């Protein structure tokens, strides 16, 4: 055992021993160990957020978000269980019925993480009833479009703008059922300093923030999740190289 290995702490996920550095989250340690814990709001390079709750695991029997929960020596994590799969499916289905997700004409289809999560969890139809909310489309920016119908309020754009772009283009406004992404200008995204090259323009897991004039460059059927489930690269042990 090397000195570095000795410094690591150890815990288990579904009975499998996982080594981790102090300060890592369960989600990060799991990914490096080749274990995929389904997640949507968590994104490599961004600070943990914990809003989608898809990554809910049991830590010593208690539900916790794997993306915000720091690892601890000896903790017992349950991830791949029928109960948790059902809980995650229910949450993903909540996201589907809460917004207006029309995959059939969405540019993100095939690359969409929400859709991919539905595929991975085997969702054929949500158990919840559709809400069909009235939401806005903001096309005021010359290069980027915001379609709030598809937003899942994961805050990846908020964090990417702040943490990676050094800007503050996005922030949540309102609360509860009315919560939505606000932009740093009265008249829409066009009035902000958002640039098409910003990481924030790429952080969206769904088709809410999409770039203009580059749609459908990759045909439907040849996209990221068309043939392989989301999480495959982690399960193939490629998380570190990501």
């Amino acid at each position, binding site marked *: 055992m090397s000195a570095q290995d000795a410094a690591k702490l150890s815990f288990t996920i579904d009975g499998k021993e996982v080594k981790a550095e102090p300060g890592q989250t369960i989600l990060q340690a799991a990914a490096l160990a080749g274990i995929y814990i389904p997640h949507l709001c968590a994104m490599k390079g961004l600070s*943990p*957020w*914990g*809003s*989608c*709750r*898809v990554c*809910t695991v049991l830590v010593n029997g208690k*539900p916790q*978000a794997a993306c*915000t*929960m*720091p690892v601890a020596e000896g903790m017992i994590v349950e991830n791949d269980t029928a109960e948790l799969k*059902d*809980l995650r499916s*229910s*949450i993903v289905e*909540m*996201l589907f*019925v*809460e917004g207006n997700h029309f995959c059939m004409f969405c540019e993100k289809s095939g690359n969409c993480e929400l859709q991919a999560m539905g595929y991975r969890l085997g969702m054929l139809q949500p*158990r*919840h*009833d559709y*809400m069909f909310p009235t939401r806005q489309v903001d096309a005021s920016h010359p290069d980027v479009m915001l379609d709030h119908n598809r937003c*899942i*309020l994961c805050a990846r754009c908020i964090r990417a703008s702040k943490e990676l772009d050094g800007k*503050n*283009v*996005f*922030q*949540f*406004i*309102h*609360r*509860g*059922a*009315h*919560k939505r992404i*606000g*932009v*740093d*200008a*009265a008249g829409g995204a066009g009035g902000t300093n958002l640039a098409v090259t910003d990481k924030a323009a790429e952080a969206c897991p769904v088709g809410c923030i999409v770039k203009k004039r580059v749609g459908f460059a990759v045909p439907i059927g040849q996209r990221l999740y068309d043939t392989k489930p989301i999480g495959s690269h982690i399960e193939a042990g490629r998380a570190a190289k990501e």
Partner: protein
Amino acid sequence: MTDNASVSRQVCGNFGNDKGRLMDILIGVQAQAGCIAPEALDEIAKSLSMNRVEVESAATFYAFFSDKMRGRFVIRLCNDVIDQLQGADRVAAAFRAELGIEFGQTTADGLFSLAYTPCIGMSDQAPAVLINDRVVTKVSTDMVREIVQTLRTGKSLEHLKLTLGDGNNSHPLVRAMVNNNLRERGAVVFAPYTPGVALQRALSEQPVEIIKIIKASRLRGRGGAGFPTGMKWEFTRAAPGERKFVVCNADEGEPGTFKDRVILTEAPGLVFEGMTIAGYAVGASEGIVYLRGEYAYLLAYLEDVLAKRRAAGLLGRDILGKAGFKFDIRIQLGAGAYVCGEETALLSSCEGKAGNPKTRPPFPAQKGYLDMPTVINNVETHCAAARIVENGPSWFASMGTKASSGTKVFSVSGDCAQPGVYEIPFGITVQELLARVGATDTIAVQVGGASGRMIGPSEFGRQFCFDQLATGGSVMVFGKGRDPLAIAHGFMDFFVEESCGYCTPCRVGTRLLRERLGRFLEGRAEAADLDYLEKTSKVVKNASRCGLGQTAPNPILSTLQSFRSEYERCIKKNGTVFLPSFDPGKAVAVAAGIAGRASEHFGTKKGGVKA
């Protein structure tokens, strides 16, 4: 709207253009300009060197802020479950008729706005309204007419002739119509209080000794969760940080809870004394009282109590002559958000942000207000801590039960002869309490507010204490003829309204649960809906991020447990048929109106066929 901009500039200046005081700035702009208009957002952002969207984030989070001009008199009718049972609907109808507007609207003359608001902490004198920051209790339809006429002609709140309440409610700085309804004084919170005695005793000990004393008393948090107070203080003391804070959670928003209102009215000195002792124990020199916006009528009075304590050497530098010990307290007003009673959301709000809960861990004891170690305790807990230091831990631990020492201040409302505040040692049974408050023919008791549990008569023999029936104080009594499912639905309305929306299960799940529960009340429920309620409730409970979401399904889960037959009765009416998720008759109504003919298929029948 230059006015809005110049008001904003001036208010920002008053707070030293400190973005940490954004809450106070927004409260100031709303009060002075009547709204927080888009221009105000621009101006505040400029003055505080913030991004506009960050200001908008906070300005749009709280119910008391509005981007549209509100009337000079904003009338907020409390529509919580208790108020509804005691005639809030009649009062609402009277206001609508008198003002000629709907709720959510403002009169054309710009004088009145009408709004609903969740529990304002007056369940013992319901129905109640807030007019700006003035409280009017036991509102009748006759009073509505009088209020509107007086304000319409007088155009000033000063013209409202309100009968002042008892105790300090008639203090010149309070002058509120509120009554304490303090029915039983116990040995801890409402016993006679002499300023400085507990503090003097505390300062004669080492800080670590104070923590030992609190631990020995087995004091647990009075807000409802019951975390051992001594441990909280110990963690905060041990945590590294340049500054440390003591926060008092006076955001008493849990429906049916109003004991903090009475404590702050009758024993504010004791609260501040407890905070000061906590400051000494954990090594903090700054304290914040987070006072819910609904209790703004107490603000001037509380500020006066603080000023007097400063003058008496009980706050400030070298307190009571103890060289080097300094501590002072500021009051942070809230602006209408139940979630801010959740301790980390409260901290976000104190920092001037939208009241979203923070990620835990780290806990406030490690990283709280401004990421510094912070003790947060309930109003009543601070009082108890001061008394424990004054009278000793064994004195305190001799009251109550083994796991729940001391007294508890209960807020009792609903169907009983003497609603009000009762300070009673832990361990009293529901039955005993019901007898004391004059409740007869009780069919259900809601313990711990909307986030608590509804119990039926079979559980009335149980004790109020942390290991049986835990409550932050709220006890709502429901008598014969009340419908447990309708009450649960009222609570779900509350959670839908008050969810911060940060996490999926709470933001979406609360709405789904309310809708599904509604089907039972409308006679559209099928057997599978019971299963749906149970499973979805568990998802919301297990997967939500903070205490609000984790307890939001409790109205359903506890009625499923205690009043299952009520659910089954609703299903029985429909047999085992599959029912549409909607009412087809209603769904064709608009089209039928346009076409001028009745539906071919759904004229009278409700739709639905055998599965």
